């Protein structure tokens, strides 16, 4: 490091399944410039100080959703969190909360992928249409009804923010439910009844106690808490309606 170069300390929670029985902190000192992201900080560590540090990243521009970490205890995208906001204090970096740590900053997200697959995240057409008939008409208002919920980048920050997921990993959770809601709210889709089964289930929306932190940390303004809680209302209506109209409402 050059003489007079400003530096900052990054404390990383390390865990290596082949050597460690439990995670432990390790502190690195790296050169600091005020345009450096936390991701660039850990990249510096990997490139120059310790090649064995593992983490995920790719786009560097907050769109691929790979680089989520707990930064000073807050679930954040490391590529759009800047060291200058902490300097000169030490920054603490840890794998996303509530997920099993595979190694260092890498968590196991297979459970999330299974949830994503379980919500039928594709259009189940309300009415069939051939390609030669062209696009479905969808006004900007109809688009607006679901657009926000379609901008989820699967970064999992909301899961790391949600204590109910931490306490019960079977809970379908904020992002997957937001995506489910995105399809239900799409004017082209007719699959709502099929998806409600999961919403209504014991792993569904009623695990949420409206903590709301999921929406607070979401980098893409998806507001997953809103999707989850709107579906509590939907689910309750569905629940009571089946007594009134045994064939309609729910299955």
């Amino acid at each position, binding site marked *: 490091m050059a003489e007079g170069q400003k530096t900052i300390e990054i404390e990383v929670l390390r865990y290596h399944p082949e050597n460690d029985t*439990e995670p432990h902190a390790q502190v690195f000192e790296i050169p600091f410039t005020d345009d450096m992201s936390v991701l660039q900080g850990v990249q510096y560590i990997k490139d120059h100080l310790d090649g064995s540090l593992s983490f995920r990243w790719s786009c560097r521009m907050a769109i691929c959703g790979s680089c989520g970490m707990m930064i000073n205890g807050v679930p954040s995208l490391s590529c759009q969190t800047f060291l200058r906001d902490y300097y000169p204090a030490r920054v603490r970096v840890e794998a996303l909360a509530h997920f*099993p740590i595979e190694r260092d900053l890498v968590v196991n997200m297979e459970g999330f992928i299974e949830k994503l697959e379980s919500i039928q995240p594709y259009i189940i057409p309300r009415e069939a249409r051939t390609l030669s008939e062209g696009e479905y008409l969808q006004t900007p208002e109809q688009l607006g009804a679901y657009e926000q919920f379609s901008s989820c980048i699967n970064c999992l920050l909301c899961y790391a923010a949600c*204590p109910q997921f931490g306490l019960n990993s079977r809970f379908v959770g904020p992002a997957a439910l937001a995506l489910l809601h995105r399809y239900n709210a799409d004017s082209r889709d007719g699959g709502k009844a099929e998806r409600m089964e999961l919403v209504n289930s014991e792993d569904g929306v009623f695990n949420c106690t*409206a903590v709301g*932190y999921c929406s607070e940390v979401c980098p893409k303004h998806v507001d997953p808490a809103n999707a989850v809680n709107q579906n*509590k*209302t939907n689910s309750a209506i569905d629940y009571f309606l089946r007594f009134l109209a045994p064939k309609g409402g729910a299955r």
Partner: protein
Amino acid sequence: MSKRRPYVRSMDGWWRRNPYFVEYMIHEGTALFVAAYAGILLAGLVRLAEGEAAWNAWLAALKNPWYVGFHLFALAALAYHSFTWFKIMPRTMPPVIVEGQRLPAWVITGGGLAAAVVASLILLGVVWGMVR
């Protein structure tokens, strides 16, 4: 054989880890006051059913400084409950679209709080009117 050994962290004391969660626990905690207050009302109702003497004893008990103290705390707790209830309301209710624009969160929260004030004043007025 795979060498994977995913490490699961404990959730113990999770609500102390983040100021956001501390606040959550506090607003959830207002439920204790709601329950206790409902209990006191329920006791009063039972006393009412038992007759005038019992009712008056219950009324007198309310003047006990312990009860007054409790109600002071309960007032604070319920007021905080009202505030947080409406604060999270924009997150919990379906979006309201007015002229193609989504109603901003502060309007919903503000509207809820205003409704609470109005409802409370009506309640006070009705009580006042009934006994006068």
